[in-house]
């Protein structure tokens, strides 16, 4: 009975990690890839660690696995935000079918200040014209 629970948890965890990998390969844009990485892979690894918890059923392993899960859930959004901000500053292009860019003209390239109004001084803005090739 406990083997079935472990198998189900490990199956869903491995499937979510596989979906994250397929999404990283198939997504057309850096920002969409960051989105896939944050959600699906974190949930999948969390489920695999839960299966470890069920298998050992031991206070040490349970607390350690929950520490790892808590750490992953805390750090995944932070690192995703940091790498998304950095890739916006270095001018990674958006997908050419992207509908809108809310930050256009608001991040200043030299001072790294986020303004709330659109400020279109041309030498101080990040160039985000969308991808033209394919």
């Amino acid at each position: 009975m406990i083997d079935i629970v472990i198998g189900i948890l490990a199956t869903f965890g491995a499937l979510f990690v596989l979906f994250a990998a397929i999404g990283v390969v198939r997504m057309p844009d850096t920002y969409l890839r960051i989105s896939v990485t944050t959600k699906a892979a974190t949930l999948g690894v969390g489920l695999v660690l839960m299966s470890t918890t069920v298998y050992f059923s031991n206070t040490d392993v349970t607390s350690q696995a929950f520490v790892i899960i808590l750490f992953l859930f805390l750090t995944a959004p932070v690192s995703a935000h940091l790498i998304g901000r950095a890739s916006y500053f270095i001018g990674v292009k958006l997908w050419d079918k992207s509908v809108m860019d809310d930050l256009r003209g608001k991040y200043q390239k030299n001072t790294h200040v986020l303004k709330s109004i659109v400020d279109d001084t041309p030498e101080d803005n990040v160039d985000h014209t969308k991808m033209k090739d394919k």
Partner: protein
Amino acid sequence: MTLFEYLHYIILPVLVVSAVLILWRFIKGPSIADKIVSLDLLITTGIGVIAVYSIIYDQSTLMDTALILALIAFLSTVALSYYLEKRKRK
């Protein structure tokens, strides 16, 4: 089919296939941000592989390695994106 055979022959190959897919994106990735993201995801997949191995070999000590890997993944992503943002010319 016992639990260990199931983990050996189904769960581990699925994780390895996803690691190979992520490695393909890591080699190909158009910008350097893609490479950093896929490196982070590769280490996260490695944590899952370590957890499955700790069940198969009945060694709960391997979870320490998973914790250290999670720390290193976060630290490397923060450091790389910090230096990427401070870089003057693109």
